[in-house]
């Protein structure tokens, strides 16, 4: 279905069910869809699994969501940061489950979900504690671990510009997880700086084709509302 331009962030996360797996873009604050995460805080879904590279910074955005106590589990590569005190406290007191996934495996597992790949063999983490419980296989003289896709019910992504077909472009290293997460979730909500007409983006430079995008919130429209 063609993407829908939403009138606000709340509309973009409406209907998120308890128990959902939510993919949250961003690497640190670059590409972090803060306003969409804030909307998810207001929306109120509980028992969530969050998939994101980090586990929140400071007290806003993802950290604010964690602080509500409605996140059961977080899947990420690097939870511990200088300003990840909300997560740190939840983790140390046993109030959140943590699955640490190497960053490249995290990205590839999300891609696999979007690409219809059932599982894949990765050389990353072989012989380390993160290999525990994973199937091991030698292929052509090298050892690999079997890794499974990570599907989301909802993805929250921040991009730079969308056209009315839902095609997206990003800015610099804020691109990071957005394009793979947009392929990996049943519903994809994207916040952008602005929306342009179909034909205004260079078709050679579209990073996320509109087929992956369900809901778009332009910041300008939000400001005007």
């Amino acid at each position: 279905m063609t993407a829908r331009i939403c009138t606000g962030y709340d509309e973009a996360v409406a209907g998120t069910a308890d128990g959902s797996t939510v993919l949250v873009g961003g690497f640190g604050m670059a590409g972090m869809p803060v306003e969409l995460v804030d909307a998810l805080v207001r929306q109120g879904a509980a028992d969530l699994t969050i998939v994101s590279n980090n586990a929140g910074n400071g007290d806003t955005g993802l950290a604010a969501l964690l602080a509500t106590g409605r996140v059961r589990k977080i899947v990420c590569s690097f939870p511990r940061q200088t300003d990840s005190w909300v997560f740190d406290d939840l983790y140390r007191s046993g109030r959140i489950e943590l699955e640490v996934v190497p960053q490249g495996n995290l990205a590839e597992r999300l891609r696999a979900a979007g690409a219809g790949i059932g599982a894949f063999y990765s050389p990353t983490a072989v012989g380390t504690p993160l290999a525990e419980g994973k199937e091991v296989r030698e292929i052509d003289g090298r050892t690999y671990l079997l890794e499974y896709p990570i599907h989301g019910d909802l993805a929250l992504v921040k991009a730079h510009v969308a056209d009315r077909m839902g095609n997206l472009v990003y800015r610099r290293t804020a691109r990071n997880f957005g394009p793979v997460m947009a392929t990996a979730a049943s519903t994809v909500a994207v916040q952008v700086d602005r929306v342009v007409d179909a034909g205004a983006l260079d078709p050679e430079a579209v990073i996320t084709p509109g087929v992956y995008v369900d809901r778009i919130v332009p910041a300008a429209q939000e400001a005007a509302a």
Partner: protein
Amino acid sequence: MNTRTKDDIAAAIARDIAGEHPDGAYVNLGIGQPTLVADHLPDGSGVVLHTENGMLAMGPAAHGDDIDPDLINAGKIPVTELPGAAYFHQADSFAMMRGGHLDVCVLGAFQVSAGGDLANWHTGAPDAIPAVGGAMDLAIGAKRVWVMMTLFDKQGTPKLVPTCTYPLTGVGCIERVYTDLATFAVGPDGVRVLEVHGIDVDGLVERMAPLELHLDRVVGSGTGR
């Protein structure tokens, strides 16, 4: 006899795509007859065409000065670009297909089985050079895969059969079969006749025997309704 032409069938498919996807659908039209469907999509249907060689928002065939050898469809026919188009490479294009992001794919067929198996890539003739292209990826990729074909071959043998005798392209992947004489739903529940055209139901049952047909939902000219 009032059988449907290829154009009639294409129009019926186009109508069903538009009817089931009021907000616009992402559709792949297989090489050959299925491309006719594009000509029948109603204005404003919002349907976006995917071509598996790497493009979304493909436009109609190109003519004269519009022909660009770098802009072709999967049948290697020069085509055009619509506003909001996006280009992508083969791995991304088939990830989009395999990952189930396209709403409908319409394919031609040599045979379809009652259970929805598809045979459309190889006649099984010992001297035939095998060539599959994207057929097997398309067969299992879209959310809904439909077939467009004549119901009988030149010898009068049904192409909708209890079990395919030609080598398979995909297993249990077809949901609907559009033909000159009738439209069928196929799958785990067997074959259900949805519409007949220029043939009465008794005649259809007789010509399709020993294939069992469910007749509880037939509409169309052949029934007199």
